[in-house]
């Protein structure tokens, strides 16, 4: 059955088509704009969510690592801040959903909401960056402390190693000293130099199925270093490589040098004495004698400068 006919001339058809094309063009323009704004918003939101997640993950590892250390509280503070951000994000979602249901679709409103979201995300991003920065500072400070201790230790080993050369028990001493050096090196290897290293160390522990050892690892590492130092002092003294006081002063001198970040310390004698006195409870004379002894035994050089 033939359908009814609609007769129209070409001119009218042309006009009609033109109108439709105009409309279509406009719609497509809107689609383009929407696409752009949605894509941008989504990307921004994605970045935000990633930052939060990363922050939260590191913070959890720091809590485990520094467990039992002085800094643990600070890290807990950060943890609380993270929780707060996540809560606000959840609230934002809820409020947006509710609002949209309430209003009619409109291009301008789309823009406005997208702008709100953008502002929200930017604000939270600033906060997150702050927290990340705090995490980094904590990690850097405490890890550096350990690293300084290790450095003094290895310096002392090196000094003793040179002293052993002239000892008749040189071979036996060297072997002992090497064993101490190896243990110092193991400690150094387990140190997280930056935030990412902490994740890797965690994974390592996890892989080696000793994740429980990760918790409080910072405190354990400090203990190991002190233990090594005592063993080293004992070894030096017992093997008469150096006297007990002398090694204590030498350790203090190495610490001072480390603190002032100089490899080769050249200090005025009096100043030295002053700094040493802050570390060691001894008199000037004793300290002077020890220094002279150390100089005489070749552990340091006392230089007389005439003006």
């Amino acid at each position, binding site marked *: 059955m033939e359908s009814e006919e*609609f007769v129209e001339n*070409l001119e009218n058809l042309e006009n009609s088509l033109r109108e439709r094309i105009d409309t279509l063009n406009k719609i497509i323009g809107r689609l383009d704009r929407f696409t752009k704004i949605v894509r941008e918003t989504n990307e921004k939101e994605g970045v935000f969510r990633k930052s939060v997640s990363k922050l939260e993950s590191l913070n959890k590892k720091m809590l485990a690592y520094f467990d039992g250390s002085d800094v643990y509280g600070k890290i807990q503070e950060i943890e609380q801040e993270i929780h707060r951000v996540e809560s606000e994000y959840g609230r934002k979602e809820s409020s947006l959903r509710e609002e949209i249901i309430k209003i009619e679709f409109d291009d301008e409103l789309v823009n406005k909401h997208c702008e709100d979201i953008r502002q929200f995300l930017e604000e939270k991003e600033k906060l997150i960056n702050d927290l990340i920065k705090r995490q980094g500072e904590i990690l850097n400070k405490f890890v550096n402390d350990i690293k300084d201790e290790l450095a003094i230790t290895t310096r002392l080993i090196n000094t003793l190693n040179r002293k052993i050369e002239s000892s008749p028990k040189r071979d036996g001493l060297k072997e002992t000293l090497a064993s101490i050096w190896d243990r110092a090196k193991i400690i150094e290897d387990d140190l997280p130099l930056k935030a990412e290293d902490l994740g890797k160390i965690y994974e390592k522990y996890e892989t080696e199925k000793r994740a429980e050892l990760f918790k409080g690892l910072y405190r354990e590492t400090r203990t190991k270093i002190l233990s090594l130092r005592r063993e080293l002092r004992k070894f030096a003294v017992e093997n008469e490589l150096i006297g007990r006081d002398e090694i204590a002063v030498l350790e203090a001198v190495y610490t001072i040098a480390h603190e002032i970040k100089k490899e080769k310390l050249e200090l005025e004698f009096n100043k030295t004495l002053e700094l040493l006195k802050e570390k060691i409870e001894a008199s000037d004379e004793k300290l002077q004698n020890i220094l002279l002894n150390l100089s005489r035994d070749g552990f340091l050089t006392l230089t007389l400068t005439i003006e």
Partner: protein
Amino acid sequence: MGVNEYIDELCRLPSITGKDVVDLEKYAKLPRVQTYDSIKGFLEMARKAKEVRTLFVIAEWGEGKTSIYEGLLRNPEVIKSDLVIPISTKRLITHIKEKVGTFYDTGSIGIRFFANLLYTIKDIIDNDLMDTPPFDKIKIRPKEEGTATVLFIKNGLTSIFNTIPEESRVFLFIDEFEDIIDELSDIRSFVIGGLVEVINGYPRLLCEKGPFAGRLHLLIAVTPPAYEKLKAETFADWQRLFGQRAFEVKLEKLDRKSARDYILGILKYCWHGALPKIPFSEPGMFNTIYTATLGNPRSIVNLVEVLLGYAKSQAPLGKVKVINPEDFINVLSDKKITVYGGEVTLLDRTSLSALYGILERKCKEMKLEVDKCIDILHLLLSNLSPISIERVGEKARFEKKNVIWDYLRILSESFSELWRIDRPFIFFKRVVGEAEDVRLELTARGAPQNLPKVVDALEFYEFDHNRLSFRNVLFVPNQLLGELSFKDQTLFQNYVDFFTNFSPELGSEDITVLVDRYVFDKVEKSDEEYVMLSPAIINIFYPSPSIFFLDFVEDLDKRFEIGTKLMRSLTEFEKEFHSGIINLLQKCENIKVERHFEPYAYGKEAEVITLRYKEATQEHSLRACILPLLKTSEEDLRSKVDAAIRAMREAHIPLLMIFSWNPLPVEIKSVLETMLSLGMKERFGKVFYYLEFPLTFVQCQQVCGYAVAKERGYRVREEKWKARASRILDEIGFERRLGELIREGLKAGYTIRPLALKKLSLTNVPRLLRTLLITDGTIEERFKMLQEMEKDFRVYGEDFPICPLDIESESSFRMFIDELRDNELIEVKEGSLKTDPTPIERRILSIIKEYGGEVERDIINKFFISTSAQGQSPPSLDVYLDMLIERGQIESVHDRYRMIGLKELDDRLRTLKEEISEYKKRYAQFQYGYLVSIKRRDVNAIILRDCIEKIARIAEDLYRDRLVLDYDRRVKRQRLLELLANQLSRIIELVEEFHRIFLQNVDEMKGKIRALKRSLEACEESLNNLRLGFEGKRLKIKERMLIEEKERDVKELESKIYNREELVEFSLELQSKARSFDGLYREPRGCSIFDAKIIQMMDMYNDLNNIVENTRQALDKVQGLINDFVRLRRSFEGHELWSLNCENKLSSIIYNWIKQGIEITSR
């Protein structure tokens, strides 16, 4: 030289007019025995005959034809009771000229001629013989107006025959019949034709059972050339009549001896038979007279009269002086005489004076007497016979005999100095004994056949003792010619010339043998030497006409050498005769003769003579070849004629000009006539013609002489030759006869003259003829027929093959026809037109037929004499060729013309019929072919189908009638059909051309329409598929509907059929529209031609095309927009928005919101 001698005075001088010929004949007998016997025999035969008998008496001028009447026919013993009526041909011609038209009541030329003859008889009887019985009783009454010619003849003859006994006959002696030769051809034809008819038996009164049967006969005196002419012009009749009703007799010639007797007879006549003594001192003078006159009787009488007149004047009263050598020379010096058609001067005074001068000088040098020397000269010059040295001495009164030789030597040296003739004398010895006895002895049985001729040459005469008669004397050369031929060739040649002058048929070897062996060795000779002038010297002073006429050869010895050679053996100079004739013709003042050679077959070439004859303001041009004939053997002539005719045919030369020594023998003419008209049927005329120019010996000798002189490098006086040549050309009537031939060619169709056209162009002549050939009746009727045909078939602005000329009115038609009539291309008699082929057309057909039915134009052209005149366009053969094409007699194929026969006509008709029938089928369903032509505001409409139908009917009718129609009628109707078919072809050509261009245009348009319709449909489909919302109905584009509607209109018009009246009615309006369509409109010669229906269709298609064009543009836009729309929709549907990966919570909320929102707003 000697003492003057006188004798008694003569009684009378001889008449030079021949009036006293009867008396003269009593004394001076011409050798007429055979002639008279023949005439008598004829008379006897005629007396017994029941039809008219005719005897032609043939002789040169002055040989005594007229004397036949006086000397024989008036002799009662001969003529008995019969009546002889002498008639002068001149008088007869006068009557013919005056009485022209008097005898038109009869168609018989014989009766008309005899009526004129009777009038001439009446004139002669009434005026010349009124007192002569029985003529005084004859009263011929003139023809009364209104009475029949034959009655006039009957009454006239009755009055003649009433005066003579019942058994008596009438002989008409028609003298000087040669006079007709100088008359115009119509008179000549009438006389000759009439004469033949009379001999043939008209009027009937003179033969069978007529009242005067066998009672009237004719004797006609005529010169040889005229007689030959007569025979040639009446060839066929002559063949039949000669020997039965017509006879001939030739007068005998005088030889040396009979001339001597004739002269003696004249002298006796002068003294009434009582001649006291021969009034010439030397017997050789008789031979001198004979030599000077070449034996012509009239000239002999003339010379004797002059000499005697002088002798009488130089003598005392009652006396006559005997002519001595000096008198003889004085009287005849510078004397002009006419012999055998040529005038010669005897003893040229200038030559004589020159000779005297030299003799005088030489005699002084030699201390000899000049007078005696001149006396000897005169003696030798006046006495052309051997004279003994002793007698010469006596005559010169020399005391010492030997001194004569000194004088002869002086003479010899003088001749040599003056004329370079080294041997002026020939010497003889006298044969001892009676000449008659010796002759008998020498010519006895067993002697060579030619010996008598040699003996005749050697026979001279001397006075008898009382000088009243002669005694024959024989001489022989003084030495053996055989020996002489080795010792002295010049002298030997002189002897040869001596004999050949006497008997031209003798050759030099014959002469030597005959003279030496049969005469010299056999006779007893005197010791005495006889001297005579050599033929060379004789010819100087007594030139034969031939030698005389060779005066253009500057050196006399060369002249004589050539003259004698030619005289001896003319026939051996055919090659020279040929080149001489060419040269002769080139001397013709009014005729320019060009000679060239044309190859005509492998390795052959023909000598073609182009003659351009200027006659007043006209110039005629014709091709001819010449056939110079000197040989007399019939076999030789026949083979030459045969070869010439073959060459003529193959080299396409229409005219053969035969130059012959004497008229051609009748047998050869018969061969000529037969060969020239070979294969010619009644419907066709002669293709080849010939003109015969018989030349006398003298003329031949001059012609050859010139050629020989040039060939041998002799000095020639060109101006003299030119004068001689002009004379010969006049004598043979070359220009006159050529003129006659050209004029006769107008009737016979071989002469084309320019047409005198004022209104018509040359090309229009055959075109007009075409119109006349296919119409019938009077001019008015034909014009009406033309108008009818124009209505049915004419396309204005185009040539109309039926009537190619633009004839606007009956009067202009008549004017054109008058011009054709004035040019003798058609005849108009009592209002009706006769369109028979002209003689030229008939000749063209003959030529084509001659060459196997097909021939090139240039070849045909070669067969015509073209006549052009100043200020007139040149004559055009093409007009006549085109006329023949118009007549359907020939057709032209690549410049060749071919005859069309009945079979071809049939074939063509069949082809034509099939062609027309094919047209009929092809155009039966044809929806166009409404051809309209408009001239000014006059519309002619041709409907192709109707046109084919009409012509098909004509073809069917002709095909049905073809077998019962006569040829001319058949050709005429077929020609009309062919022309109509031509016109139909042209109409079809125009219609097809218009239709083809129309279809090209329409096909293109149809293609556009079809494509557009498809596009519109596709567009509809697209739009419908896009569902753009047409209220749920199927979209139909309005323009498509409009186009379909127009297409229906076109179809309706295409199937429409018009009649002529409708076409005429609306075509004028269409004219301006038609102009706008390239290729569908023509405007030749200011007329419009178009196919009315095609123009209407084109107009409609044009509208449709406009719609199509506009629609196409609009549709293109719409289609572009549809494409844009589709593309955009596809962009919308495939937009990336719809597939964005939006995993984050806030963004996802916004994204979903947008999607929902767009979906809602895009609906």
